[in-house]
């Protein structure tokens, strides 16, 4: 039996409550509030308590999907990534960098958002970068 708890942050609202995620033999359990956390001081709201549930949902995407006609079909990473790269670059070359736009995510980490805007600005060459926080 292999048990560990990992300290992380609730994925929901901006309160940033601290929680431990228990993992038993690779299986994710329900969050445990972090008693010493300066923002949440050992408490979570109902969303926080349920934060593991969506992770183990059977609806999770587990493979890239590529459109063929009306359907999205499973594809390998190489197929999907090559398609993305070639289409993005073709459109950019044909219509200019500002014909592409990128939406960052308030659900992703600082590192991920940093990388996406770096990609947009350096590789594509556009400042068309925004996110949904205006909403």
């Amino acid at each position, binding site marked *: 039996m292999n048990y560990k708890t*990992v*300290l992380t*942050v609730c*994925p*929901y*609202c*901006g309160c*940033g409550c601290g929680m431990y*995620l228990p*993992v038993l033999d690779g299986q*994710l359990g329900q969050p445990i509030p972090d008693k010493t956390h*300066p*923002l949440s001081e050992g408490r979570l*709201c109902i*969303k926080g308590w*349920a934060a593991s*549930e969506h*992770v183990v*949902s059977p*609806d*999770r*995407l*587990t493979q*890239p999907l590529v459109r063929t006609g009306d359907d*999205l079909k499973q594809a390998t*990473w190489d197929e*999907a990534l090559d*398609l*993305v*790269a070639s289409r*993005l*670059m073709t*459109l950019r070359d044909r219509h200019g960098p500002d*014909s592409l*736009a990128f*939406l960052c*995510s*308030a*659900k992703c*980490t*600082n*590192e991920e*958002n*940093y*990388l*996406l*805007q*770096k*990609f*947009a*600005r*350096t*590789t*594509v060459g556009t400042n*068309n970068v*925004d*996110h*949904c*926080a205006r*909403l």
Partner: protein
Amino acid sequence: MAGLVTAFGSGAMTNSVPEIEEADCILVTGSNTSENHPLIGARILRAQRKGAKLVVVDPRHIHLAQFADIYARSRPGTDVAWVNGLMHIILTEGWEDREFIAARTDGFERLKEKVAEYSPERVEAITGIKQGQLREIARLYAGAERASIVYAMGITQHTTGTDNVLSLANLAMLTGNVGKRGTGVNPLRGQNNVQGACDVGGLPNVFPGYQQVTDPKVREKFEQAWEIKPEFKGLPQEPGLTLVEMMNACAEGTLKSMFILAENPVLSDPDVNHVREALQNLKFLVVQDIFLTETAELADVVLPGSSFAERDGTVTSTDRSVQRMRKAVEPPGGALPDWEIICQVAKRCGGNGFEYDSPEEVFAEMAHLTPIYGGINYSRLENEWLRWPCSSPEDLGTEFLHHDQFAKGRGLFTAVEYREPVELPDEQYPFMLTTGRQIFHYHTGTMTRRSPSLAREVEQGFIELSPYDALQLGVQDGEKVTVASRRGVIEIKVKVTSTVSRGLVFIPFHFAESAANVLTHRALDPVAKIPEFKVCAVSVSRGPQPDVRCD
């Protein structure tokens, strides 16, 4: 955010969350805090038990209103008017902080002239807030040693959103309630990393750390650090499109392709029918997410990313606290960490500088280029609590901003005129619709509706209708009604409640099958470009109405 940048030089929450408990008076407006930021809501109530006065101004009688020392019901979209009214009273009574105004701010005379026009009588006529109540609020707020303002999207999601924020900033500066503990102007961020996404350059006009893309010196710094290939002739110089502008550009055909990282604009954006059509108009749409969201269903390629439990990295909470997220389990099947996917795409597009071994390396590069994060690194985050700005390894971070001076030097008062919401009720659409969230769900419900214990609590969308209007329409709690606006029609169950007043209806936006944002419109705040979700006109009729169509 634009409002606070103009007034103070920084758009973030001025004070930290724990400081709320040190306030003597807390003014909550446009934030249903106990439902949307439950643990901050709990802290506000704790502050009240310690003796703070709680004032709530909101069109809806929200949960916190039940406990408030004063609850004032304002008409939606009239925030500038009542805040000007408060300042009018404060100045008439001589309750302003003259020393603070003289030492730290500009623009006071113009403000004074403007708010002189907002007598309590006039404000009552505009906002519906009784003069006596307004006076009492002014007395509590201005009389407190430390007064704190807490707000959220109920303030920003208007065509006058920037004006609303400027007004609140005016109020805080007028009374010297900024730049010290337990005070401030505090916008609560709706999602886990809204603050961080802004901080690291997820905006069309700034690089990481709010460094302007239009500033040649800034561009040069990033060009060198990012080793821009010569054939690129430097980084783009003009600010890009904002979200709603992007959607319009899709519809017009000037945008050809979008890459959407874990967002679901098909449900979250105003006038979703327009958004759907706009995205379908693209030549190529990429969505990276953990579920097949309504937006991903429209994509040409869907890339499976990781959930919060499967990733390492950092997020920045609403009060600027930078926190580590840590990976607990592996992503399912072939899903990958999002940072790896983005690097893969970038490299295959010929991108330079996307060879990282870990998020820690990404963070180090970012912190190096982002002065407000400059002193933060993963090892410090192991045992220190850091709020930005934190510029050097010795810097212990910043609990509250604008201590000795404002981020921009001197604070700026802006004289703000009240403007009516763009769409007001009329004969055909007699109700005012406002939208928002509720406690069991989060944003578009992508995650929460797939969580059995949350979905069980509230499975379906609903419309809040006042008992008076329910009686007039002859509808009962739980019955279905048809709600129409100039943009769309939905069918939805009724919840009869005195949370809303006569003529006002509320719909939470989490539910795809009865999406509130079918009804909302795209009118934008001219500065912040935030859509006006909070006010539009609708009609409500009993039962399904097959012939109700939008015009």
